[in-house]
């Protein structure tokens, strides 16, 4: 890893030049009303790297809310054609926890049967991450993430005053920064690490994350599931804002002319009522209690056992988005601890 620094102004001019001169699509964090979102940048003036959280994670660029998998002429089976939109993209300003989530998504789509629709988009992406510089009331990423975010980032930024310390993690990242007014880094390791950790999490999972899989296994029948299940509206907000939820539905869309059609995949989630319903109407997860438990088990037990990393990255979006104010894993584990 190469460590340099750049003034925030020089970084901005460099990005502005990139947006205007490069043909690659550049997206970054921009303000939308009182919130922040990842969106296409027309100029670096729009870029807001000092933000709390974005409404949706950058997952949407690799697994879009709706994406075409196949095109066809209706009823003509030999017309099936698999398609993808995977032009190069640079994403600027991804918080560490969202990078950790992308690591998990990469594992899910590349291992076993390889999903080229996702993987091509990822291969054509360049990720510029940043350590959070603003509080977010529901965030707890430090208690649930480890090194995984650094495995996917090409460049990491650490803000110290009017400078960014630039950690260059990949050759692709180095190439991207050619022409930037980079300077020799004169901050000490201690100063950099302190800057990375300067924004403390507002929340914390009350037990060590590596103990959670066994903890959940012992608590399959804990009254928490009925307690939270009873309050859940099954609206699916928690799974739709989650950076590590990748479950999807597949649907047909046919033009009115009936001359063209497409098989699309859309976001789906296990908290929605019909997620596990089969053709004869039998629902294998028919109660809100069972769906609520499944979501927490998936993040806290099944994904950690499969990938060696906790399945929740602590972004806090679910806790913030939840209509009933029950979705946050911190709240769930705290309740379980208080009602042993």
């Amino acid at each position, binding site marked *: 890893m190469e460590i340099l620094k750049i003034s925030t102004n020089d970084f901005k001019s460099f990005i502005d030049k990139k947006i205007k001169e490069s043909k690659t699509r550049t997206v970054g964090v921009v303000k939308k009303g009182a919130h922040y979102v990842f969106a296409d940048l027309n100029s670096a003036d729009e870029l807001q790297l000092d933000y709390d959280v974005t409404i949706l994670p950058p997952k949407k660029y690799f697994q879009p809310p709706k994406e075409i998998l*196949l095109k066809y002429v*209706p009823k003509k089976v030999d017309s099936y054609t698999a*398609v993808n939109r995977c032009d190069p993209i640079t994403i600027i300003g991804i918080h560490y926890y969202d990078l950790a989530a992308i690591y998990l998504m990469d594992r899910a789509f590349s291992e076993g*049967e390889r999903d080229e629709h996702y993987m091509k988009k990822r291969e054509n992406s360049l990720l510029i991450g940043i350590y959070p510089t603003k509080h977010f009331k529901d965030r707890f990423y430090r208690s649930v993430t480890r090194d995984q975010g650094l495995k996917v980032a090409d460049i990491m930024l650490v803000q110290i005053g009017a400078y960014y310390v630039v950690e260059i993690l990949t050759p692709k990242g180095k190439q991207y920064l050619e022409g930037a007014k980079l300077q020799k880094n004169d901050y000490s390791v201690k100063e950099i690490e302190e800057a990375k950790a300067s924004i403390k999490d507002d929340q914390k999972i009350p037990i060590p994350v590596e103990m959670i899989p066994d903890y959940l296994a012992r608590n399959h029948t804990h009254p928490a599931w009925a307690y939270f299940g009873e309050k859940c509206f099954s609206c699916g907000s928690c799974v739709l804002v989650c950076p590590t939820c990748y479950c999807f539905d597949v649907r047909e869309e046919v033009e009115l002319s009936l001359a063209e059609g497409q*098989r699309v995949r859309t976001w*789906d989630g*296990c908290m929605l009522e019909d997620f596990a319903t089969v053709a*004869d109407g039998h629902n294998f997860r028919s109660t809100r209690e069972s769906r609520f438990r499944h979501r927490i088990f998936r993040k806290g*037990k099944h994904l950690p056992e499969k990938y060696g990393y906790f399945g929740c990255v602590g972004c806090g979006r679910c806790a913030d988005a939840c209509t009933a104010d029950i979705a946050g894993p911190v709240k769930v584990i705290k309740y379980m601890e208080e009602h042993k």
Partner: protein
Amino acid sequence: MCENCGCQSSEEIVKNSIYLPGVASLLKKQPMTPFDSFFEFALKDRPLGHLPGQFAEISIPGIGECPISISSPPSEEKTFQMVIRNVGSVTNAIHALKPGDSVGIRGPFGTSFPMNNLKDKNLLFITGGIGLVPARSAILYALEHRDDYKNIWILFGCKDPSQRLFTNELAKWEKREDITFHESVDRADGADWKGNVGVITTLFPKVQKEINPRDTYAIIVGPPVMYKFAIMGLHDMEFADDHIIVSLERRMKCGVGKCGHCQMDNIYVCQDGPVFYYDDIKHLKEAI
């Protein structure tokens, strides 16, 4: 321009997409019950190459895709058979097909009945309703390799006589002397039915005395409600859990372990199943 997000991204063709179906044509179709029909297909450019107990995703462009069990044994190399219940838009469209029409096929997917491991053992098939469809691929395999297996018992139960499947084959199995076949219906409903009436477990006492549970493997395929009672009956007959094999149904939408619909605890049934040793999944809370 991309119609989804408004970006200028262009579209490229994906050659090795796991979601791209191959083309199969319908060779033969025959109604079996008021809702179920038998279909025989052949893939255009390759044999399906399945093992007993696997499934495939069948699709019609513009209508959709759904998982269907394969009912024929692998010995039919060029063709494969399915029995499809008309319950939704895709199966409805498949029921409207005529011989010569085409469907999309992805697969085969999933685990299979461990026919090699079962050699020199007794086999007890416990099948309910359309559970007979995937079980038939293993039953026919065992009958084709009859000398590889010791005693074979087949138990079949369905709701009423109108829902019996493969009636010609059931009649043949009934007559064969090298296997034991029993069947029952839950309700006779005034039909001309002289056979057993009662749920599938009421057939267990008929075979219990002949079966040595230590040398016999039970294979259960049926509706969700059947497993618990069948396993309880097998426990009464002193079957060990590693001698019980189940094929479980879930919503196997993508078939490739991604979409999440078929999850059962941490298991993706489409890849880790549908066939399991009961011993391996009995600790799962969402299995049976």
